[in-house]
């Protein structure tokens, strides 16, 4: 893609959009897409089909098709599960925490980020099923009493995880849908025929009357207030899956903040990966300006520096603990068969984002895009480095082992990206991916007599 320039065509939005411009600029994105869009959809759809075929194969053959052997029973599935949960976090951060802080720059990116959250958690939610092997027994995860006494163990972090993820998914979906209601009403009022009827149902017949707004605003504030502790807790609970175990390199109180920071870091990179093309193709330069990109790049830089601090802590703790197994685990990660993944992680997460110290880099879309891709790769490998070499080198040599991915599990991982992107691509063409109401609020109310 050539670097987009700031030139705007004659019919596109002007520098200072009015309220009517906002409606028009959002409504034109839900029109019939062109061939380029369908070409992308076909590619993503084919990749997804390959992923589904690989999963079917794994169900047919058994979990052995995934290349998981002791001691690497978690391997790539849990890596990718943690990765996708992490991606979701930036969306909630933008939609809830920045809402409570009244950060105005969030208005034009939060809808896209929130959709990203919902789809990322939906993608992550597939992995416990894929990983479980006999996924038709997945309902055993839920705590329900039965005649066979399959009582859940509430002291297990895996059960906490079930509660945390399902709550996170439910609340994210509710927050997302509630935010959409007034915007879908705007779409309804500008469309005709069957589309109008569908949008009318989705908008719940919203009219923007004072009664509706009053309760809506209160409810929205509460959603933001409960999402804030929730988002911080979810990745902490995910990190307990590791930190509660005795595996060297896992058993650390550092894990909760370490995971939360990494989640926000990778999530912001994914936001940029999604928002930059949207800005280019939808011509949303008046709404997503350099200021937004600058703010996001700064957040990536800050979270990267915090993450580097945690990396240093991790190594220091292993050394300072004096524990032989901790030290051996770090040494094995940095020098043995997975050393390439270990150093790749440091390069992508700690070194590459440093370019954002330069203002020119923060405003250059190509640099932003490339760094974001590096961050995504780095953060996937961070989880890989925790799980695979961690499990592969624990206390005794006879339990050590090397994991080799198979075509089946690799295809499922790639397919999960296709699943995420197909949901997102569909979303931006049928629902408003820019918040009409919040952008209007940021523009300011039209007043006759001035303030």
């Amino acid at each position, binding site marked *: 893609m050539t670097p987009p320039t700031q030139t705007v065509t004659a019919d596109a939005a002007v520098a200072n959009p009015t309220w009517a411009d906002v*409606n028009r600029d959002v409504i034109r994105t839900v029109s019939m897409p062109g061939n380029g869009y369908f070409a992308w959809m076909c590619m993503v759809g084919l990749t997804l089909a390959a992923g589904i075929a690989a999963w079917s194969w794994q169900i047919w053959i058994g979990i052995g098709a995934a290349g998981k052997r002791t001691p690497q029973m978690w391997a790539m599935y849990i890596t990718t599960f943690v990765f996708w949960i992490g991606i979701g976090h930036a969306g909630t951060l933008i939609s809830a925490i920045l809402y409570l802080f009244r950060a105005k720059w969030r208005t034009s990116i939060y809808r896209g980020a929130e959709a990203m959250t919902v789809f990322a958690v939906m993608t992550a939610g597939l992995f416990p099923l894929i990983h479980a092997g006999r996924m038709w027994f997945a309902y055993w995860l839920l705590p329900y009493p039965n005649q066979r006494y399959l009582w859940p163990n509430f002291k297990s972090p895996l059960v*906490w995880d079930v509660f945390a993820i399902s709550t996170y998914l439910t609340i994210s979906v509710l927050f997302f849908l509630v935010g959409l209601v007034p915007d879908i009403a705007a779409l309804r*009022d500008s469309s005709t025929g069957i589309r109008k009827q569908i949008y009318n149902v989705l908008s719940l017949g919203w009219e923007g009357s004072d009664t*509706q707004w009053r309760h809506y605003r209160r409810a929205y504030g509460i959603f933001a207030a*409960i999402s804030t502790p929730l988002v911080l807790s979810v990745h902490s609970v995910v990190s307990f899956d590791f930190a509660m175990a005795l595996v060297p390199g896992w058993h650390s109180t550092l894990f909760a903040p370490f995971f939360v920071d990494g989640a926000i870091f990778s999530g912001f990179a994914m936001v940029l990966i999604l928002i930059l093309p949207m800005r280019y193709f939808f011509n949303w330069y008046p709404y997503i300006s350099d200021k937004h990109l600058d703010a996001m790049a700064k957040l990536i830089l800050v979270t990267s520096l915090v993450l580097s601090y945690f990396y240093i802590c991790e190594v220091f703790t292993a050394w300072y603990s004096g524990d032989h197994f901790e030290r051996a685990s770090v040494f094995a990660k940095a020098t043995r068969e997975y050393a390439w993944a270990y150093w790749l992680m440091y390069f992508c997460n700690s070194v590459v984002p440093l370019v954002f110290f330069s203002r020119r880099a923060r405003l250059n879309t190509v640099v932003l895009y490339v760094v974001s891709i590096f961050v995504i790769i780095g953060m996937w490998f961070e989880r890989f480095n925790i799980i695979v070499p961690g499990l592969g080198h624990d206390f005794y040599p006879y339990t050590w082992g090397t994991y080799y991915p198979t075509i089946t599990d690799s295809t499922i991982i790639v397919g999960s990206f296709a699943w995420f992107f197909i949901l997102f691509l569909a979303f931006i063409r049928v629902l408003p991916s820019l918040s009409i109401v919040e952008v209007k609020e940021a523009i300011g109310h039209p007043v006759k007599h001035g303030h």
Partner: protein
Amino acid sequence: MADATVLGIFTHADTTLQAIRDLRAKGFSDIKVYTPVPVEEIEEEIEHIRPLSKVRLFAVVGGLTGTATAFFLTIWTSLKWSLVTGGKAPVSIPPFIIIAFELTILFCGLSTLLAMLLLGRLPQTRPSPTYDPRFTIDRFGVAVTCPPDKVDAAGSLLSTAGADEVRR
């Protein structure tokens, strides 16, 4: 005799607010305001004639129900199958707090949604007679319901305040 309704359509937030103030000063209390975005000043004005939103009450009750449900579920389940795992007593509260936290948030969110729908009377199956599609773009609406003999007074109040259009 049935009450009549007058609708004033405004372009500006401040004139809309002025119209509501004028109407209230003259004793009109059955007012419905349409806005494309929530406007704090208008909301404050409207709070005088409407009870305080009960969404927060729903949220608190829902949240506490979640907490209670979680402790009930975890403690009851553990007592039913009383096994010592991880060297902890069957009922050990600290790990159950995590479940309680998650269910508090879950129930709080669900009851907030319920409150928003119930109190805001959503979903609304058919549009209100005074609704205009421009209210989701950039127009504000003030609909006054009053006895037929006061319709002219309400209409002239709306136009003096700055309504672009007054519909009876």
